[in-house]
């Protein structure tokens, strides 16, 4: 049976893994490849490398960091997000070592590129990053660059429904770095058929259980909470024994 996933999220700023607090304050954690290697050993179901300064700086994807992380010899699927604006950016990110890509600015700036990306990588490799918050009339889609929030543009909803995007990373941007998740972000999501990956503030097993029990939720992203203890993914999976997850295990290859 297909299990729900726990995705270890590594936030990267300036080439360094950081602990992020509301995408405003950053505490350096070390080299991304070291964190990725830990998540790989601890049995994460996917690893998301989120380079949060690439779009705003206009520097495009951080291929060097992807290559460094991929060269760590991971046997866990690697998802990359940051600076992907054109379809060839996404293709190049995969060539550099990613297995899937997250798009954000592309959705707003050049939505026509999403179809091209899906055709070249397969739509199953494409995830939409949606920083959202709850408003009186429904969910609000936050724009990091303009620093404002507005209802979802119809074009973005059409893209999500078109089949060119497999999953939506629902980013609780207001609670990111904190210890809580606004369930409205799942329950008021404008389309109940789009698989969701909640992220931001999912700091303990109880919170994770609450979101993973939602049918629409395919996976959950965990960031800062993994920085505080060894084998955090394994321990969380053990605590979430009642959820249909891949069993927790230590990922170590031995020839015998």
């Amino acid at each position, binding site marked *: *049976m*297909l*299990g*729900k*996933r726990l995705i270890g999220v590594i936030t990267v700023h300036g080439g360094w893994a950081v602990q992020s607090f509301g995408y405003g304050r950053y505490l350096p954690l070390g080299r991304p490849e070291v964190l990725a290697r830990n998540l*790989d050993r601890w*049995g994460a*179901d996917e690893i998301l490398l989120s380079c949060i300064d690439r779009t705003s700086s206009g520097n495009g994807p951080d291929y060097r960091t992807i290559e460094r992380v*991929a*060269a760590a*010899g*991971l*046997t*866990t*699927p690697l998802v990359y997000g940051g600076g992907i604006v054109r379809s060839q950016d996404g293709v190049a990110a*995969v*060539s550099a*070592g*990613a*297995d*899937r890509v997250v798009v954000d600015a592309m959705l707003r700036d050049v939505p026509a590129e999403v179809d091209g990306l*899906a*055709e*070249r*990588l*397969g*739509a*199953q*490799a494409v995830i939409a990053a949606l920083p959202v918050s709850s408003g009186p009339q429904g969910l609000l889609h936050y724009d990091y660059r303009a620093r404002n929030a507005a209802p979802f543009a119809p074009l973005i909803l059409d893209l999500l429904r078109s*089949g060119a995007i*497999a*999953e939506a990373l629902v980013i609780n941007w207001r609670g990111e770095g904190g210890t809580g998740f606004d369930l409205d972000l799942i329950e008021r999501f404008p389309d109940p058929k789009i*698989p969701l990956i909640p992220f931001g503030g999912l700091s303990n097993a109880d919170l994770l259980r609450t979101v993973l029990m939602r049918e629409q939720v*395919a*996976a959950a992203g965990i960031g800062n909470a993994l920085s505080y203890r060894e084998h955090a993914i394994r321990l969380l999976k053990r605590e979430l024994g009642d959820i249909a997850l*891949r*069993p927790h*295990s230590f*990922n*170590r*290859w*031995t*020839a015998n």
Partner: protein
Amino acid sequence: MSARLVGIVDYGIGNVASVERSLRMLGFRSRLSHDPDVLDGCDVIILPGVGAFPGAMEALHRHGMTHYLQERAEAGKPIVGICLGMQLLADRSSEIRPTPGLALIPGYVEPLQDARWHIGWNTLEVLQDDPLLMPGDGRSLYFNHSYVMHTSPEYCIGVARLGQPFTPFTVAVRRGNLVGLQFHPEKSQAAGLHILKQVIEGLGHAG
């Protein structure tokens, strides 16, 4: 005995570095190439694949690999298709537009029936007690696809299902020395590496 030499078909599609690194981890030597002479010198050929069927077939044609793979398969060369590489072994696919495949294993590729996507870790159910796959029976492996290969039961050696009420679908095929794996063994942690090792060593000896 020297380590098996594995050729990885380089046709500009996907993340082949992961496959290379996994092979190295398993103690195999590898060559990434679309040069027939280089691939001929390998014990086993891996056909990787990420993306959509039409683009991948187009790339195989462009690199002169279509006829090469068909001829070598006919001659009994061990070939392993991974993910989209497995689907390319079929006769045709309806993904995006009708496209002929390599036609090495009778079958066709269509969208999944019970869901739009099959993304994540799922349990492999091995059929026919195939010795190449048996170490993976009941293990969780990583899948990432939305189309699935339909083939005759004689070629189907592994299935998965989305849940109990749903119909099982083919995720592993075999026709002699041709093997297709819909999951990513190189991205399925220790369980995937065990299967990859078993398949390459099993086929390598058969070849």
